[in-house]
């Protein structure tokens, strides 16, 4: 009944094996179960008490750079166009295949993000659409000082060269996003991004 799908029975990764910020940043302070019992620092009766050191994520002194995990979080929640599953859980995008390349010279501000996509089968006809979705998501979500480079991982798709050429061509991406039906497909994929 669903035989028209290129891959009707894909392998699924368990959510607890997917990379997440909590895992990669073990320095974040753990809140113990005891702290909630006797909140030591909150005194509702005295708003003038010396301010308590607030959560480290909210203090403004240090900058949290955009890293691979952050890029992963932006694109892993995109839905696959054929399955109601996320690109992360299908292994289409993985943390290892995301690279952030710092500016080439100290005078330049332009960094690049390179994302390699692994289609679920080598004959997947929707690879271009997936690539387009990832590209659009990143163009909208990353600051303009990043150059976005989305390509198919080598040796994973028969049409890799063709697709890479399309994704790398600004004009062709812009033209694709003029196509109403293609825009709708991409919007549906991106609808699950929280």
């Amino acid at each position: 009944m669903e035989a028209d799908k290129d891959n009707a029975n894909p392998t699924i990764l368990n959510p607890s094996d997917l990379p997440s910020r909590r895992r990669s940043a073990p320095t974040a302070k753990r809140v113990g179960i005891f702290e909630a019992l006797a909140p030591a620092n909150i005194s509702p009766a005295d708003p003038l008490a010396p301010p308590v050191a607030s959560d480290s994520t909210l203090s403004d002194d240090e900058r949290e750079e955009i890293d691979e995990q952050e890029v992963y979080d932006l694109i892993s929640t995109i839905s696959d166009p054929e399955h109601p599953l996320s690109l992360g859980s299908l292994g289409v995008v993985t943390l290892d295949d995301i690279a952030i390349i710092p500016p080439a010279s100290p005078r330049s501000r332009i960094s690049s993000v390179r994302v390699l996509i692994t289609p679920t089968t080598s004959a997947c006809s929707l690879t271009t659409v997936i690539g387009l979705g990832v590209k659009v998501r990143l163009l909208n979500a990353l600051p303009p000082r990043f150059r976005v480079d989305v390509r198919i991982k080598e040796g994973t798709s028969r049409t890799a060269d063709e697709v890479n050429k399309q994704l790398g061509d600004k004009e062709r991406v812009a033209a694709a996003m003029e196509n109403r039906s293609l825009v709708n497909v991409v919007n549906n994929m991106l609808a699950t991004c929280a």
Partner: protein
Amino acid sequence: MSDVQLYLLEVDKHKAEASKIASQSASRLETKQLKLIDLVTSLEPYINNRDDASLRAKSVAYLAEVLSHIAHKVLSLQERRLLVDFILGRLEGDHEGLGASARALISLEALGNWDTDTAQKVMRTFIDYTSPLRQFKLQTERYAVAQLIDLLLAKYRTVIRQLHDDDHEFLPAFISYFEGEKDPRNLMIIFSMLQVPMAEWDVRAHAQDLFESVFNYFPITFKPPPDDPYGISAQDLKDRLRDCIAANSDFAPYAFPQLLDKLDSTSINTKRDVLQAIQECVVGYEVQTINLYSVTLWDALKFEILNVQEEDLAQEALRALSLIAAKFAQTSEGPLNAFLRPIIKECNEHLEDAPTKQSEAASRILHAISITAPIIADTVIQGAFPLLFKMYHGTESITKRRGLLEAANQVIGAYSKLDKVEFGMNVEALAAFSETAVAAMVRALVAAPKHEVSFRLSALTGLAQLISVQKALPSSQIELAVTTVTDIIIHEHIEGHGNIRPQAIKTLVDMAHAVPQVLQERAIPAFMVELPDVPDDLSRSEHVLEAFAQLATEKQLFHTTILRLKGKLEAARRQDAPATYQRSLLLALLYGFTFGEPIPARADCYRPYAIPLVDEFVRCHLARRDPAMCEIVGRICNSILRPQGVHFQSGVYHKDLSWMSQETATQTSVENLRSITPYLLFYYAALRVEVVEAEDIVALLQKTSAAALDAGVGTNGHGMTLRLLSLLVNKFVNPKTMQVTLEAAKLDVDALLTKDCSVNAIGVGCAIVKGLLLQGKSAALTTKYLQALLDQLTAGNREVAMRFTTLLAPDDVLTKENHCLISNLYKQKVFTQAVPFITNSVRNPDAQKKSNYLVALSGILRWLPYSIMEPSLPILLPPLLQTLDLDTSADQEVKASGLTIFESMLMHDPSVVAEHTASLVTRLLNCTTAEAGNHANVRAKALQCLALIPRQLKREAVVPYRRQVVKRLLACLDDAKRIVRAEAVKCRTAWLALDEGTDDAD
């Protein structure tokens, strides 16, 4: 004029009047002023009028109406029989007034039961002379007939059935009689009445016709009109239709093929109806019948699960499979095995390439059928586990092993659930695999790489489930499992990815419930070894302690756990262990008392636990007393003492009175009182009002207020002192003598503020007013005091304004559980008094004063439920917009709470915000920049609000800002903080989406 003439005159114009005439006729019949024969004769010219059909119908209606008003025993049996014959006789030749005839017959039946002949004759006449019913265009007419036939089937079952038994032509006529009915009201009755022949008659010869007559309506696509006065929903019709389809096993040869055919429909609703109908059939049909179709059903249902289209369809399909399995489980093995064999075979095939979408579905199927009965679970285990574990051992791939383990867990989980409902279940089949399973799971936990999180978590789940099945594991296996999990908790210290301790702790607590004895012997000693009296590595010991304390939540281990903790605390204290360690041990005890002990047993804990702790930590020399420890001891006492009755508390209180009054006596220093205040706060919170003496309270109030007024602002423990004041006022001061008592304790707020308007005095004033507000008894006094506080806003400084937030701030001590008086309206009260005053004064041109008012306003608003503010939003909006302009770093809190209110407003009342769109968008954008000194949480909140605007406001009102917002948000995408960037992405997506559906290239 005769009654019928009058009736005919009125009936078209005044229904009510006509009805009155009929009822008058009825009463005249009763009083014998009118004879029945005369009444019938008077009808004659109209009821037989050849030229005017409507006149005939109306005169029958008159007769029906008279009969409906007639009381019992007015008409003799003879007369009733005559009337029935008269009406039926008419119908044979004339269909006019069909509905009225039916109504008249219903009335006559109500006046006295019919004999066999009459009942049969009524039925026959309708079926023979008025078929098909659809020829009558008026729904009301058909409705009356349906009601009459429903009545016959309900009350004269055997008599009507006799008709069918005697004449095999009757049923086809009966079936075709209702053909083509479309009105939902009539269908509701027809579906219901058809169930009588379906369920009770021998319908084999006409099963197909009977089935088709109802299945023609499947699937129901009826949509009730808006404001439908009859209130019939599509669901009502679906339910009745489903009951019909499932009413008779003889329908199976027609039902299943057609249902399965419709399962291929593209409409989700149709598929849902089909699946529910199949479930109903499985329940309704006989076992032998289901047996014929079980494999066919499996072949069709599996697609819905293996290729999930909609999750709820998969669940319905799973439910259908469970119902089939359950049906066979009650009876013979043959059909059951015939059903299970292909299922297990196919599931095994899917498991071979685990973990895939379909292997996951296969394990769901195994779970769904196993859970229906122990015998099925056994069959599934015997059929699936040998191959499953063979594959498990045959592969090196951890991903595959994880998939297989998850499948095994689904089946074991079914056992675990069955074990809770089936008492003394035979678990031999599972026990046969227990050793293999435990070995595999323990190995997964011990030997697998730590980053294989899902694999190890599956192993944990599996062990917990195996242990929860009684008698499935021999004691050696149980011990192995418990030790393995305990080891992980104690010895694994992985930060970030790979940390499975929280789940391991939860598993151990689950195990504690099933096998407390093993934990007593194995786990608890292991934990104690890891908890030294004086720790070298504090954070490590705290980790262990946290895990250990959670064992107290299992009732059977509670006493052991807290006893060990107490012993450890004493040892640590003796050897002068670091204060943080002692504090953690105290917190562990508090955790145990808060989550572990059932309330009635707590009284026994007071003497052995609470009293020694108080002696050790509270009644010690000032130098050794730590307010933080006092607080925890206070909380422990509170949790034990609070639920106890007056008698028990009274005993405790009178024993404590002497040392406590010494500690709080006037000659002791303020320092002393302040250090003990955290304990006093929770101790007094636990006591019931009637336990405490009024004089003690006055003395304590005096002393506490002195301490509060004396303290420097923001000193340690100042907050505790103020909380104690609020508590004492709220709980122990009698509302009738409130003013007198407060004056005696020198706490009259008016007097206090005229003497001294320092920040401390305002703090004490707020604490008193808070106690009063919550109590809600002394309205006049509260109003007066609150006004006195508000007056200070004009004169005072910023700190005064900041105090206002304490009035409504929630306090976990001031609760009903702590026997406080909590009025339901106190928030409303503050709002109605303070907010108009402040919104009027905020127009003050002095910038400093203006900002004071804004700070106070937001301090009050941030604690108010949105529903209280809602009616006043138009007044609140301007000052709230101004709070977003405040720009000192001290105002961040104020801004954040203002933004929260805007968020609620955008969610619930976007129309109120609409006219301020321009100023709101500008201000929100200003709040998103870090350069302006906005904190990260303010920036993030502002972005959340901004994201709501395009979703909640009208498109045309928002589009003009799109270009500006999208451009300014580019900067937020590069914010220094990750949470702000995440919000910026969401916000920008929401604004970019505005473009969709239009062609303007922007």
